[in-house]
């Protein structure tokens, strides 16, 4: 699936100062019951954003000005750990979040971000602290993917990203279409692989 490319964005950044914010928290189970990607904005951080009676919680950063307009998050270690549910990424995007800066990410979540155009930036503890200070000061920042830099009032922080991931994000490309250009290469690998493993050839998961 093609997605909206990420090139350069300027926006507010909201700080979520916690480690291990899991995908159950990002997208609670109640919102996993559809068969499409729609309507997940209301689910994103639902129990942090809303009290049980549906009233927005004043103590949650994304309910406070100016972070109601935030397009970026900055957070601690292991953001997006836990369940594989891609709904977490879809929901963040639908909430308007375009980039997350974290000390580290859950592995599946990190890949899910790349497949949907959500920029996941791994930064060290010092950079996360610096960005959190800018976030809490209510300042807008710019994230420029091409130059791999986060531009804050007063300083520019660089970040690393794999070349291929960057290319896909900047162009919003469909990974399947690109892989299928290697159709013949895959088929030839498969022939040789299965040829060496007679116990797998042709059977798949069907009864032996």
């Amino acid at each position, binding site marked *: *699936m093609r997605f909206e490319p990420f090139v350069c964005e300027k926006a507010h950044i909201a700080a979520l*100062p916690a*480690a*291990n914010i*899991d995908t*159950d*928290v990002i997208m*609670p*189970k*109640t919102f*996993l*019951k*559809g*068969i*499409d*990607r729609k309507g997940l904005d209301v689910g994103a951080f639902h*129990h942090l954003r809303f009290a*049980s009676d549906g009233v927005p919680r004043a103590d949650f950063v994304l309910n406070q000005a100016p972070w109601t307009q935030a397009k970026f998050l900055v957070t601690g*270690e*292991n953001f997006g*750990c*836990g*369940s*594989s*549910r*891609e709904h977490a*990424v879809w929901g963040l995007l639908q909430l308007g979040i375009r980039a997350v800066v974290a000390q*580290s990410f*859950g*592995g*599946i979540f990190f*890949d*899910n971000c790349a*497949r*949907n155009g959500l920029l996941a930036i791994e930064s060290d503890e010092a950079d996360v602290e610096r960005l959190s200070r800018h976030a809490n000061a209510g300042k807008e920042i710019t994230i420029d993917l091409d130059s791999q830099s986060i531009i804050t009032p007063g300083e520019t922080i660089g970040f690393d990203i*794999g*070349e*291929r991931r960057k290319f896909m994000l900047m162009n919003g490309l469909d*990974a*399947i279409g690109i*892989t*299928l250009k*290697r*159709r013949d*290469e*895959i088929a030839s*690998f*498969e022939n040789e*692989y299965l040829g060496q*493993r*007679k*116990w*797998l050839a*042709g*059977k*798949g*998961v*069907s*009864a*032996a």
Partner: protein
Amino acid sequence: MLAPKTLYDKLVDAHTVCNLDEAGQEILLYVDRTVLNEYTSPQAFTGLREAGRKAWRPETALGVVDHVNSTRPARITLIGGEQDIQSEYFARNCRDFDIELFDLFHRQQGIEHVVMPELGLVLPGLVIAAGDSHTTTYGAFGSLGFGIGTSDIEHLLATQTLVYRRLKNMLIRVEGDLPVGVTAKDLIMSVIRKIGAAGASGFAVEFAGQAIDRLSMEGRMTMCNMAVECGARGALVAPDQKTFDYISGKPRAPSGEDLAAALTAWTDLRSDPEAGFDETVTLEASAIEPMVSWGTSPDQAAPISARIPDPERETDPDRKRDAIRALDYMGLEPGMDLRAIRIDHAFIGSCTNARIEDLRAAAAILKGRKVASGVHAIIVPGSSEVRRMAEAEGLDRIFIQAGFEWRQSGCSMCLAMNDDVVAPGERCASSTNRNFEGRQGAGARTHLMSPAMVAAAAVAGRLSDIRSLGSN
């Protein structure tokens, strides 16, 4: 002389179609098999439909309904509502894409990660990627299993491959023997507590050492299953005679000449003696105690004999902050004796701990005992096959006499996508894998532990030490 390799590197090398970067860190990885469920797959099939794409090798995929279904004993209808939409669309997708489906009424229905091994579909040397994080379970067979999101399910179905980034290698050695009453669950919870919820992030871990060698296949599955809770995107145990014996004779495992050929190939599936690991962690099995979690992350856990740690004594400011928040959510105080924590629910189930061995361990505790009044207790077998085995052994009667509900199979209260939900503020002793905020219901409080420890908690009405109870 070839360079020595870890088991993980051997598996990845054998499945590398081509490199996608010069360093060979990002590759196109060939995937042998997948298992699909009704809740993470629908958008993948829609993507295929919209692009007019077919499944590359549909015979390598199996569909299993497990996440949203009710596990109430009467299997007559679905719950009614959105869950039915998912199950119905799943059935249509499997039919249209020529994928075998175990629906709710199939004799082999169950939790995907219990069904796959018990059919003999998880074999040493395979790469199995699936839309569920606990796909790491398959590492117990020396098979590289890992979870993927929905976009990657679509990619896998369309191309039989994934764009894959190589992981670093971590060796976790567990020396010695586990004490009586201490299980694989306690061991993996101890590992997670030791290295942290992100401790193996970016790594594939290999479990080794005498304690791992002596674990049953079920125990090894529990270890690999929960390795994802310390961030591992792959967990392996080198296959041995125990593995081969487990596989032989399973309904869909290779047999005859095929099995003989496979067994010859599988003997090479171990890390070379000189292979280098990026990190090594060592634990002494004899020091492991029955574990329970007290917080909202699986690394917030302690031996049952301990007290709840005081966040004020935590030297790391981030961990202190997270512990204070966790205790507030859990409604607990620092210094409390864990054995004083009263429970409202007892749940034995999940892909972590609902295999026949887990049910036998729970039955050994529950035989001749009663669930404490006020505790709602349910047992959800890992598969319909496990349910039949348990009934053949008379375990169901022990559970029912003790006051547990005896259920059909599914994920059920592990993630509460069905009608088994823990109410806000209520507390559950649970043989599952995640104690996250809201996991078992909004405001629900989860304590992770082994199935036998859940049984003991159900009887006592509070968390308790299995070792002070013993078997009846």
